[in-house]
């Protein structure tokens, strides 16, 4: 994020003198329908809607009358985690986990939406640097366990993270997922599945004009367990001994109650 801010200001410094005045004061306002997603006992996922407005009408690619091209990119990133990927191999007729690679800084949730094909909006170089798109995530692999793997094989492990997370609907990309109305209003839906990781999220909205980010906004919603779910989770992780003992007493009590209720005769 810091790197990105520095980059923005650097870009601004270099480009500003050459740009016409309106681009500088390009105003972007965005908000979310909710900033707190609560995981409750009947949580089966949620949808957040991002909405916003731009001061100056966008000139999109289907609009031939404008000389310039404007696009919006929205990047949603969940809390990072370490992920160990294991590959099964056949050993003596059964499938066994063998090679393992641990990746650090893997987003637990990642979603990109845009008004256009990403490659048409901004240069591949920028996309890579800003980690825009599931295939461009920097997933570094500092730990390789038990076995030597080639770079290509590690790339397979990396791809496995993206495909598995995509299958679980935790990763996604939607070209055209940002909807424009009257060239000044926009909205997009962020679908959050039930297995979403809890923590702080970062939503970045980029306004790109002719391949250059001219304005950006960040929002920081969060996903949290609430009520009894939060209580139990915290209890289990902060006071594991007490939690275990409570589970034991609940089981003992349930057993005793059953033996009394269903006592014969």
């Amino acid at each position: 994020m810091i790197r990105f801010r520095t980059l923005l200001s650097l870009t601004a410094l270099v480009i500003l003198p050459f740009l016409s005045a309106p681009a500088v004061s390009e105003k972007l306002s965005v908000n979310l329908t909710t900033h707190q997603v609560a995981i409750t006992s009947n949580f089966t996922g949620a949808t957040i809607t991002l909405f916003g407005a731009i001061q100056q009408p966008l000139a999109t690619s289907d609009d031939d009358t404008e000389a310039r091209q404007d696009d919006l990119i929205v990047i949603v990133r969940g809390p990072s985690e370490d992920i160990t990927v294991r590959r099964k191999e056949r050993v003596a007729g059964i499938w066994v986990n063998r090679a393992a690679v641990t990746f650090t800084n893997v987003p637990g949730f990642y979603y990109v939406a845009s008004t256009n094909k990403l490659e048409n909006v901004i240069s591949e170089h920028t996309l890579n640097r800003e980690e825009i798109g599931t295939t461009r995530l920097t997933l570094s692999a500092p730990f390789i366990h038990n076995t030597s793997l080639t770079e290509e094989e590690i790339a397979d492990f990396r791809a496995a993270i993206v495909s598995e997370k995509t299958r679980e609907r935790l990763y996604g990309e939607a070209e055209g997922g940002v909807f424009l109305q009257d060239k000044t209003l926009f909205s997009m839906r962020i679908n959050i599945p039930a297995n979403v990781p809890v923590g702080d999220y970062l939503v970045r909205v980029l306004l790109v004009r002719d391949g250059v980010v001219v304005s950006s906004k960040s929002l920081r919603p969060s996903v949290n367990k609430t009520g009894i779910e939060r209580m139990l989770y915290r209890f289990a992780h902060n006071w594991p001994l007490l939690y275990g003992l409570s589970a034991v007493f609940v089981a003992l009590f349930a057993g005793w109650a059953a033996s009394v209720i269903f006592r014969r005769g």
Partner: protein
Amino acid sequence: MQIYLPIAEMSVNIFLILGMGAAVGLISGMFGIGGGFLMTPFLIFTGLPPSVAVATEVNQIMATSASGAFAHWRRRSIDFKMGFVLLVGGVIGSIAGVALFSWLKSKGQVDLFISLSYVLFLGVIGSLMFAESVQTIRRTRQGLPAGRRKPGSHTWIHGLPFKMRFRRSKLYISAIPPLAIGAVVGVLAAVMGIGGGFIMVPAMIYLLRMPTNVVVGTSLFQVVFVTGLVTVLHAVNTQTVDAILALMLIVGGVVGAQFGVRVGEKMKSEHLRALLALIVLGVCFKLILGLILQPDILFSLTRGDGL
């Protein structure tokens, strides 16, 4: 209707879990077994992480065994001294088992180990039970008495040192065999999420030659404490005991077991055993398929550094 499990961090269908609890409870009531050896694979089949399935199922077995143990306590059919010796073995076994479980989990091999243990355990027990019950059914059809094993004379067990007197069981035997049986059951509880009554009861009858009227109560007494300890150890070591899941399983299991007892009373015991053997072999077969068929996805993801 979906319910979110805070420790497993996924949502499951509440009726599916209650139904499985009731179905396994029914079987456990019919056959007088804990049912953990069926419930743990069932939970894994529904997509729960095997470590959560094992740790939570142990918590449920504790409730089921406790209800039985309280009933036996009232009937005074527990040999507390024998139970205590089995328990000492159980404590050693379960501490070793939980350590093994945590180590395998860090190596990414816990799922494989659980599956392999189940295949071995269910395969052997299921085949033996099936053969034995078919033989009994044949014998009764031919009008022969269902062959009972005669109480044998002295075996190698009686030659072991550290003899103890167990008044309630009317036994004077070495403490080593009950300690060893308790330890094996403790390991099984920790790594497989079962009570172990399934193997402890036959071992107490055939190896220790305990009188049958105290066997079940004494075994339940040991299982209550061992599963209690394993629950606490898993909660502390791996935080895999899901309280919400355990509660649903307990409720479903208790209700199912009461119906199961009534159904079981109406069926012939050798038919019951043949049926149970088939269920056991079916679950075993499903687990074998999971091990030998090529999985759709060769890669699996786990959180953490895996060290």
